[in-house]
């Protein structure tokens, strides 16, 4: 059958792409559980490497989470109102700001980091503090949050919605919290997921900004690949996944409720009364 042939071809292609994406991750994770990578699974499975990573790098794991969450908080507090303002103002200057916000994406992470070191590196307290890395992460992730929220707000007629709300007596902040934010929700969630993953996985900037005591997971991962057994590096991958997946699920879960309720039934008995 002709359809069958096409179907099988498509299936094979899909599986091939999946394999291309997932096999390295799966192999890496598996390597972290094998007792001896060179000898393969015959050497047996173990959690030893995982615990070793935890023992050696629990500070890095903690710091990665702290930085990611702090980065999320900053991009939410700064990025969402920025996007809201940009969506409402219709002026060439806002276009300019929008474009400027994206420039950190065009500049390599290493260059951003170098810029930060040249500018603020002299302030020793700051240079050795984890917030120094945070600044780099915020610079890098903020455009993603702003863009994502802005895209959603631009797809609805925010200006008229706001005018409607204002005509009903809502003040600026009431409008922001009751109309702007709820309607930007999907953009905020998408932006938050992006910021978290990018921050947890960020390497370029972090590698330049990190100090021996302020290390994040990706930097630790690079260290362990470079200097330790491959099993430890691989176990690191597992730790990475264990860290990021619950975080992403949590965000999705927090963002889930609060859509207006669907009509349960089209016909609701009408209470007797005036027309």
């Amino acid at each position, binding site marked *: 059958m002709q359809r069958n042939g096409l179907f099988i071809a498509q299936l094979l292609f899909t599986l091939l792409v999946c394999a291309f994406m997932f096999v390295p991750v799966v192999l890496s994770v598996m390597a972290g559980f094998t007792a001896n990578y060179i000898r393969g699974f015959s050497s047996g499975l173990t959690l030893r490497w995982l615990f070793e990573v935890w023992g050696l790098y629990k500070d890095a794991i903690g710091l990665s989470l702290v930085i990611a969450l702090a980065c999320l908080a900053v991009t939410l507090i700064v990025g969402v109102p920025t996007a809201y303002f940009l969506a409402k103002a219709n002026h060439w200057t806002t276009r300019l700001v929008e474009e400027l916000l994206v420039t950190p994406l065009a500049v390599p992470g290493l260059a951003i980091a170098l810029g930060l070191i040249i500018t603020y590196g002299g302030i020793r307290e700051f240079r050795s503090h984890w917030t120094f890395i945070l600044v780099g992460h915020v610079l890098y992730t903020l455009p993603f949050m702003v863009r994502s929220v802005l895209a959603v707000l631009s797809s609805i007629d925010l200006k008229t919605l706001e*005018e*409607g709300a*204002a005509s*009903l*007596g*809502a003040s600026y902040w009431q409008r922001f919290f009751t*109309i702007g934010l709820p309607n930007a*929700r999907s953009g905020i969630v998408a932006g938050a997921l992006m910021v978290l993953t990018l921050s947890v996985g960020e390497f370029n900037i972090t590698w330049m900004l990190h100090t021996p005591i302020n290390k994040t997971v990706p930097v630790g991962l690079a260290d362990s690949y470079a200097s330790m057994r491959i099993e430890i590096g691989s176990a690191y991958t597992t730790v990475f996944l264990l860290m990021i997946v619950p975080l992403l699920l949590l965000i999705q879960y927090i963002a889930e409720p609060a859509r207006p309720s669907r009509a*349960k039934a089209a016909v609701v008995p009408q209470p007797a009364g*005036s027309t």
Partner: protein
Amino acid sequence: MTAHSIGVPVRLRACAKTFRDGTRALEPLDLSIQGGETLVLLGPSGCGKTTALRIIAGLESPDPGGRVFFGDDEVTGVPIEKRKVGMVFQSYALFPNLNVADNISYGLKVRRVEEGERRRRVESMLQMMHLAPLRERRIDQLSGGQKQRVALARALAVQPRVLLMDEPLTALDAKLREELRLEINALLRSLRITTVYVTHDQSEAMALGDRIVVMSHGRVAQIGAPREVYHRPASAFVANFIGTTNRLDGQPDEGWLVLPGGRLKLPESFVGGGTAYFRPEDAAILDEVQSPPEGALAGTVSAVSFLGDRMRLLVEGVASEPVIIEADPRRELRVGDRIRLGIEPRRLLGLRSDS
């Protein structure tokens, strides 16, 4: 029904609007709207009608010197959220994150109306606008007509001092527009709330307005009751914009107008010189034997459109331009038929031609 009593009068004094790029959207406008009156701002796009509405709403401020009053309160510097107006938009502007009932109660919530009262008012709005079965619906589950009813209910729930409607029916299809127009008309008559209604649709304006303000290029072309504006248009622009008007260009000759198709007697003290206007329904098709003392015009039917309740004819040869007339739809008339038209002198309008 919620008692809205009589709405407040609204006055505009010398309200002009020049946009930042220098465009003059509105020439200084003086307007008095009586309490409870429905005033329609009518005109083609760019005539300043929406700008005038937005100045009343508080969404635009007039150029310095312009003043807006609601009753005895001057509201010129008062932002829209403090003006207590109700506004209905062409695009509905319903909040997609809220359901029907929550949209209606939004204004009551932000104004901190106590919960029992809030529920009572939302309920009465749902009943009044026949929306009760839809109260839990999401906005994207509503038809255009339902959306606009929700928008109207939402605007009225806050018991506004003035109701402002910006082309509320334009986004709807013809049949729905007609239905909702009747509904709005009945509602405005029963509520007696001061209403300013913006539209570019003359039939909407005539059906809804106590008075119509015809606007053109940021200026008022005429203010008057629908009948007045229709039967005694102040200018050729108004005559053309409201309904269909035919133009007869001829030579005045001692109380008569001489045209290619014949002669017509002009009314006493006619001011139009050699140009007269008439409405399609004011021309009568004459029988062959009739020769009325007011004169007649001969012409050839060049197009016939049968509309059911009436028939529209395009007649050529009467004047330099073809004229449109209405005829009894039962009459057998075909393209190419020669006909004669009679028009009573008092139906001939002399208008100053304007900008």
